[in-house]
């Protein structure tokens, strides 16, 4: 399998650097998610990989081959667009067969391959339909089948599931991941949904301001965020200003023992599930301001000296408290992350 290598890839639009010096290696056969808020440069980066934008600086390589100056139609990368971009004047099978027809393959082969792909995306028998008469999920599958029809060297998807409703989106995430495993194709997906990224990816690349903040396996990005931005963007996190104090770290509402700051001052990232609500002895004391019952978990918002902390627990694992109650919060010290 060939690796995709991005070397100092930069894209400027006027004075604005949409992508700023990105270095990244995508190992062959892996599933990578480019994750970040809108405007972070993730789509621009994907478009440069696809050949739809030229990098202002830097090089893009696939294995030994330098692709930086190769036009999109010679790269052989399958891409699924956010709008799906199904060709309205062609049927489902003609859409899927388009890349093969362009390559001058015989008609019978094009037809056969289209049918195989329809089977692959579970749309057997839909070949002669007009694309206008498909549901959102079906259109999605056609776009995926079309991008895979010519056995691309790289599979790129730009926010492919954003138009689907929540339930269908989750089902498609699992399906897409299984499809990628079965084909073993190197896949890069752009998304702003961290749950989507965590569900599908071997590697999550968190971007912000045109730069990569962290590129790692999902569990490490979640458990060991590189900075406050990543901690906050991946899941929700309590970010607390901390100061070194005798016996631990001084935070609003109390002191947490067993942690230290290298520079004396730091930010502490604590996941809501690592913050236990208690009525007895605790690290931090505060007042309940809001209780959010989500069914499977209950989130309790606690005000500690003007800072709001969120604790999440299963309903049976927490004391029944109402807003206004004085409570304590205990930190799972082993899971708290000290950020510079």
């Amino acid at each position, binding site marked *: 399998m060939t690796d995709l290598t991005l070397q100092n890839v930069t894209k400027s639009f006027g004075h604005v650097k949409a992508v700023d010096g990105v270095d990244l290696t995508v190992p062959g056969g892996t599933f990578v998610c480019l994750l970040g808020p809108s405007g972070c440069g993730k789509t621009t980066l994907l478009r440069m990989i696809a050949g739809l934008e030229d990098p202002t600086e830097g090089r893009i390589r696939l294995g030994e081959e330098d692709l930086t100056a190769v036009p999109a*139609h010679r790269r052989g990368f399958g891409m699924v667009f956010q709008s799906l971009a199904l060709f309205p*004047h062609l049927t489902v099978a003609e859409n899927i067969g388009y890349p093969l027809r362009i390559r001058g393959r015989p008609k019978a082969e094009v037809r056969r391959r289209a049918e195989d792909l329809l089977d692959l995306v579970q749309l057997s028998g839909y070949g002669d339909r007009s694309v206008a008469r498909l549901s959102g999920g079906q259109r999605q599958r056609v776009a995926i089948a079309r991008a895979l029809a010519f056995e691309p060297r790289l599979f790129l998807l730009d926010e492919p599931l954003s138009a689907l409703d929540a339930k269908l989106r989750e089902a498609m995430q699992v399906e897409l991941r299984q499809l990628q495993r079965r084909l073993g194709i190197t896949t890069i997906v752009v998304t702003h949904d961290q749950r989507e990224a965590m569900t599908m990816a071997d590697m999550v690349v968190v971007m912000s301001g045109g730069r990569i903040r962290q590129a790692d396996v999902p569990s490490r990005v979640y458990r060991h965020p590189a900075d406050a931005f990543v901690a906050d963007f991946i899941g929700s996190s309590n970010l607390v200003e901390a100061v070194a104090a005798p016996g631990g770290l001084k935070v609003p509402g109390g002191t947490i023992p067993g942690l230290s700051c290298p520079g004396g001052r730091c930010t502490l990232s604590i996941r809501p599930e690592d913050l236990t609500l208690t009525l007895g002895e605790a690290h931090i004391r505060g007042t309940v301001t809001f209780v959010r019952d989500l069914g499977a978990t209950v989130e309790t918002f606690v005000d500690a000296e003007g800072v709001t902390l969120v604790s999440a627990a299963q309903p049976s694992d927490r004391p029944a408290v109402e807003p206004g109650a004085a409570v304590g919060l205990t930190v799972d010290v082993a899971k708290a992350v000290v950020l510079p």
Partner: protein
Amino acid sequence: MRREAPRSAADFLPIALPAAVLGVFFLIPFGIMLAVSFFKRVQGGFYEPDFVLDNYARFLSAFFGGVLGFSVLLAGLVSLVAVAIALPFTHRLARMRPRAQVAWLVGLLSVLSLSEVIIGFAWSTLLSKTAGVTNLLVFAGIIEESFSLSPSFGAVLTAMVYQAFPYSVLVLYPALVRLDPSLDEAARTLGASPLRAFFTVVLPALRRTIVATLILVFVFALGSYLIPQMLGRPQHWTISVLVTDQAIYQSNMPFAAAMAVFLMLACLALIALAGLVGREREAIR
């Protein structure tokens, strides 16, 4: 926004005035013209009420049939050339910065404010021997002596395309602005060169708009009667020129009316045919 069909008298009010104007100033005159086309011409006079088919019979001669054929061919050619130039132009225009788009559109609209007479005179000057473009070739040392490019078929075609071009752009523009740019990009990632993507995806996706534009420009060009006279030889005169000639100079109202009616019928038939072809191709899908 309400979606029901208009029902009460108040609902119909906004369309009452346009309908009345259309009825009084189009349908009634057309009815009179239709009636006149069956009237009998009085030599040296005007015409008297009658029901004769002479006017239509005379029209079915080789000469007038030839002129009709030439008119349809010219209008067809004008619409094809105008749309062929306007399409790539508008495709580019729709991807420009908004401010540049406005500047181009205002420029094109100002061309529409020119009358046919001014366009005709401007082109006859541009194509003349004394002040025409061939003088530039002389200046550049490519040819020895300047020459006149008009009257000729090319001159008629050029001026009519010039006149039709802004219309083509304005009709194509909204569709091209709405066109999803990722259609073209998708075709490219799937292996089509930019040119191939344009012909296999952009063009077919715009099929309906293109047919509509062709029809509009065709009808518009069919009515042109000043430019063929100013820039063409008599064999380049269209049926509209002959209608004017018969009505004004020969005082043969019944025959002019018959030609106008026939021109309109031919026009409607061609539009219906284009619509039918479009729908049939749709049905195959």
